[in-house]
Structure formats: structure tokens, C-alpha cells
């Protein structure tokens, strides 16, 4: 990590050496990695990056890990898909979906965890741990397996089955907490104080957070080295939103692009929208809420990076929008039916949030917009189970024809009911 200077408190500016530490001893503010951008600028160019691997590690100069030491399971450089059909429906000429649901463990979490697992090995930790709303635990379990580390994952007991199995398969120790994510998080913060475990989103958080910047770099490169006019990002802790913006800004800091006037929007589900509420009320800090939402990956009532997300909204002229609970599944179906991309509930929140932003006139039709889809639909299959009824037929032509006619009749009678775009067919 030739370009890392130190760790720096985001609140009071105190500086610390690079170690597994996430909180300023003086003010409790979060620590962030500080880089020597002049040094990065001397060693990277558009060409050097383009020649790199087709993964997030093509941007290793911007990460706090030596590329040779990276625990890499093939994460990143995911498709930026021109969303012509969805764009037409919403009235946007240049809409793109950043499809990060196709990472090795099917969510963007592989980016921060790849960085953290590498760093945990460097610090000689033997246990990689996390507290998770679902996607993180699968990623921690996979990277730990690859790195030869023991893994322990903590999660609220009400989590979707797919996410629990998706961590168990890698041989992880699973700990289901009877309580909410916020309660699990408090408990794990105390465990992290008392055990020498690399908790990726607690004591390792400054390194963890850096991995998400690569979602900003990739969008810029894949748009042909230009910053988007708008980004729409799902928010739970609010960290991803701020880190995508940090990534885009760093592209200008090192001269890879001239300027970035991206408006950074964020979307939360109505049932867990403390950042949106603070944004609407014009507050600088977030009041915690008790989440009640089907978008479990976004069910954080006490968002750790809430104040920084609010700062990013203010700095970039972005907006925070909430998707109504019933719009979450509508958003999932709309994206699937228009673009062939199947996302989890967080992606449904983003697509419905995008629609709201367009309705509110915040995005003009000729502006370049990137909507981030950060998790895979197969992880929250239960929310789209209802109404799935295949045509059932014996394997002969007559039975098939009868069955299809019955289906057509059913569809016609259903079509009499008014429906919204993307609603059930």
C-alpha cells in the first residue's frame, strides 16, 4: 500500500497509524484511510487501469492493501447495463443499471470484504467475523474460506433462509441473535472489544469501507471516463452512498477525469428510513427508528454513517427518497420485466426510488443516471413467491391447448383490474 498516509478522524482530524482501529480515541468519530493522491496520480493512468484485471483490483492503487496480498474471489468490474426499456418507461434517455448482483456471493459486499479479508491476514487475525443483515455474512464466510480463516457471522434470527444457508455452506459458525440488527450490532461491538477477531464492519471498518469506492470508479470508467450526472444508491448505514461519492471524487483528485458534478441520491424503504426522515427535516444527525420493512438488507434503524450520508446529499444536491413497502416488490418486478435483471429487495427500493426521483423532476431526461443494484433476487425469493402459477399440462397437444386457453381467460379477467406499470401480470 504505497499510497496510504495514515488513518484520520472524519470528525476532529486526529491522525492514527494504520492498525485495526475504527474509532477516534478523543471524540469517538470514525476513522478513515488517508492517501497521498499526488503519489497515486503519478502511478495510475486510464491505460494502466484498463490493462488491469477485470475485477475491482484494477483499482488497487486506491485501496489500502498490496495487490499481491489481495484475497480475491473474482469480485467487481460488474456490468454497467444500458437500461433502454426501463429508461423509456421512466422517460430517461441515458439510464444505466450497475448490476452488482453478479459478484461471487451475489452482492456488492464482496468489494469491502475482499479488502478487509486481505487486511485481516496482514494483521495476523485468525478469525474473520461480522454482524450482518444478510449479504455481508455470505461474503465474509466465502472470503474467510478462501483465506484459510475461521469465520463467525452474527445476524438477526428473522433473516431470510437463503442468506443463512448462503453463509453456512462455506463452513462458517452461524450465530442467530434474538433481536434486531441494531441490537445485534451493539452486542457485537462489545464482543469486538473483548476478542481478537477481525470484525469486518466494526474494528476493521475503515478498511472495509474503502472497498465500496470501487463502485464509483467502475461507473466512471464504464461510462467512458466521465462522472454520471446522477447516482441512485440504496442506504442502510449510509456508508455505500458516501463511499461511491468518495470514489468519484478521487477520480478527479488524481486527474483521471476533469470534474464530477454528480448528484448523489439515496433510497430507503419507508419502514426503515431514518436518513430520509432526517433529510426531510433538514437535520444534520439521524434520529434512530425501529425498522419494520420487507427490505431486510436495509433494516438498520441506527445508521452508523447517517451524518455523512446527509453531508454527501447536501454537498452534491442529491435527494433522499423512501419507497413505500408495497413499491419494493413492484420495483423488483419492474426491473426484471424491463431489463431481465432480478434483484433483491434493496434493488426494488432503488428502482422505486428512481421512479420517485423522476416524478419529482429531480432527473432530466437527457442526464446520465446510474442506478445501483447491489444484491441478487435469489436471496429474497420469498417476497416474489406469491402468484407464481405455472400452466399445468399433460405432455400432449390437446391438454396443452386447453390449459393455455384457460390461462388466457384468467389473464383477461385479471386485466380488467387497474394495474400499475410493473405490477403483477
Amino acid at each position, binding site marked *: 500500500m504505497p499510497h496510504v498516509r495514515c488513518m484520520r478522524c472524519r470528525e476532529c482530524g486526529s491522525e492514527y497509524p494504520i492498525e485495526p482501529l475504527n474509532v477516534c480515541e478523543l471524540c469517538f468519530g470514525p476513522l478513515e484511510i488517508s492517501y497521498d493522491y499526488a503519489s497515486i496520480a503519478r502511478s495510475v493512468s486510464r491505460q494502466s487501469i484498463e490493462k488491469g484485471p477485470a475485477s475491482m483490483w484494477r483499482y488497487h492503487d486506491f485501496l489500502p492493501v498490496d495487490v499481491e496480498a489481495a484475497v480475491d474471489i473474482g469480485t467487481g468490474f460488474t456490468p454497467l447495463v444500458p437500461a433502454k426499456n426501463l429508461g423509456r418507461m421512466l422517460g430517461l434517455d441515458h439510464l444505466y443499471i450497475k448490476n452488482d448482483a453478479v459478484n461471487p456471493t451475489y452482492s456488492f459486499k464482496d468489494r469491502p470484504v475482499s479488502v478487509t479479508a486481505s487486511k485481516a491476514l496482514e494483521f495476523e487475525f485468525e478469525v474473520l467475523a461480522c454482524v450482518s443483515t444478510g449479504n455481508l455474512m455470505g461474503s465474509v464466510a466465502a472470503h474467510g474460506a478462501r483465506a484459510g480463516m475461521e469465520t463467525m457471522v452474527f445476524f438477526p434470527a428473522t433473516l431470510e433462509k437463503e442468506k443463512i444457508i448462503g453463509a453456512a455452506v462455506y463452513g462458517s459458525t452461524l450465530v442467530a441473535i434474538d433481536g434486531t440488527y441494531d441490537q445485534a450490532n451493539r452486542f457485537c461491538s462489545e464482543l469486538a472489544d473483548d476478542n481478537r477477531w477481525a470484525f469486518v464492519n466494526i474494528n476493521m471498518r475503515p478498511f472495509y469501507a474503502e472497498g465500496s469506492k470501487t463502485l464509483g470508479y467502475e461507473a466512471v470508467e464504464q461510462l467512458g471516463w466521465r462522472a454520471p450526472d446522477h447516482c441512485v444508491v440504496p442506504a442502510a448505514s449510509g456508508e455505500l452512498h458516501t463511499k461511491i461519492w468518495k470514489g468519484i471524487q478521487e477520480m478527479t483528485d488524481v486527474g483521471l477525469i476533469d470534474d464530477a458534478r454528480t448528484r448523489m441520491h439515496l433510497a430507503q424503504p419507508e419502514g426503515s428510513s431514518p436518513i430520509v426522515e432526517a433529510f426531510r427535516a433538514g437535520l444534520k444527525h439521524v434520529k434512530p427508528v425501529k425498522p419494520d420493512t420487507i427490505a431486510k438488507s436495509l433494516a438498520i434503524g441506527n445508521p452508523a454513517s447517517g*451524518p455523512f450520508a446527509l453531508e454527501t446529499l447536501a454537498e452534491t444536491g442529491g435527494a433522499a427518497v423512501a419507497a413505500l413497502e408495497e413499491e419494493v416488490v413492484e420495483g423488483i418486478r419492474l426491473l426484471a420485466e424491463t431489463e431481465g435483471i432480478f434483484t433483491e429487495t434493496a434493488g426494488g427500493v432503488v428502482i422505486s426510488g428512481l421512479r420517485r426521483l423522476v416524478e419529482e423532476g429531480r432527473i432530466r431526461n437527457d442526464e446520465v443516471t446510474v442506478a445501483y443494484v447491489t444484491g441478487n433476487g435469489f436471496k429474497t425469493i420469498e417476497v416474489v413467491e406469491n402468484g407464481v402459477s405455472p400452466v399445468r399440462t399433460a405432455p400432449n397437444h390437446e391438454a396443452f391447448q386447453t390449459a393455455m386457453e384457460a390461462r388466457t381467460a384468467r389473464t383477461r379477467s385479471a386485466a380488467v383490474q387497474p394495474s400499475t406499470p410493473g405490477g403483477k401480470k
Partner: protein
Amino acid sequence: MSVTIRIPTPIRRVTNGADKVSAKGETLRDVIDDMETQYPGAKARICDDQGEIRNFVNIYVNGEDVRFLGGLDTSTTSGDEISIVPAVAGGAA
């Protein structure tokens, strides 16, 4: 009338390394003042110049965030467990 307070790593320097301390008080405010008497410097780590809980500090009484209770005026009774936790821990998307 004493409560137990779990001390996070960043404050343990002030508590001479102790990860748990006892203090007395009928409200959280009193408890923190009592802690300050026992361990000078502790309060400044937890509260800002106005005496309010710092932005990046979360305090829980028996596992409940005091922002859902009465903040510094939350009443405390003997045997309560108080946790002081950095706000920036954890978090996913």
C-alpha cells in the same frame, strides 16, 4: 444503588484499563457525573462541551438506546447495565 457500565476500548485508558465500572445515580446524567468523580476525564469522552451525549456515542440502558428513552434524563435503578458504544460500529449497505 449502583449500576454497571461497560467501557469501550477508547475510554479504557481513563478507567485504568477496566472494561466494567460501577457508578451510582438516579439518572444517566448522575451516573456519568459519578463516573467522572471516580475517573476524571471520563465525562469529556462521552459528552460534548454543552454536556450533551457526543454525536458519535450511543448509550444503552439494559440494551435499549437511550434516545428511545429519556436521553441523559433516563432513570436508572440498582442493577441496571449501561453500555457505551461508538456509533460508527457496524452497518451494512
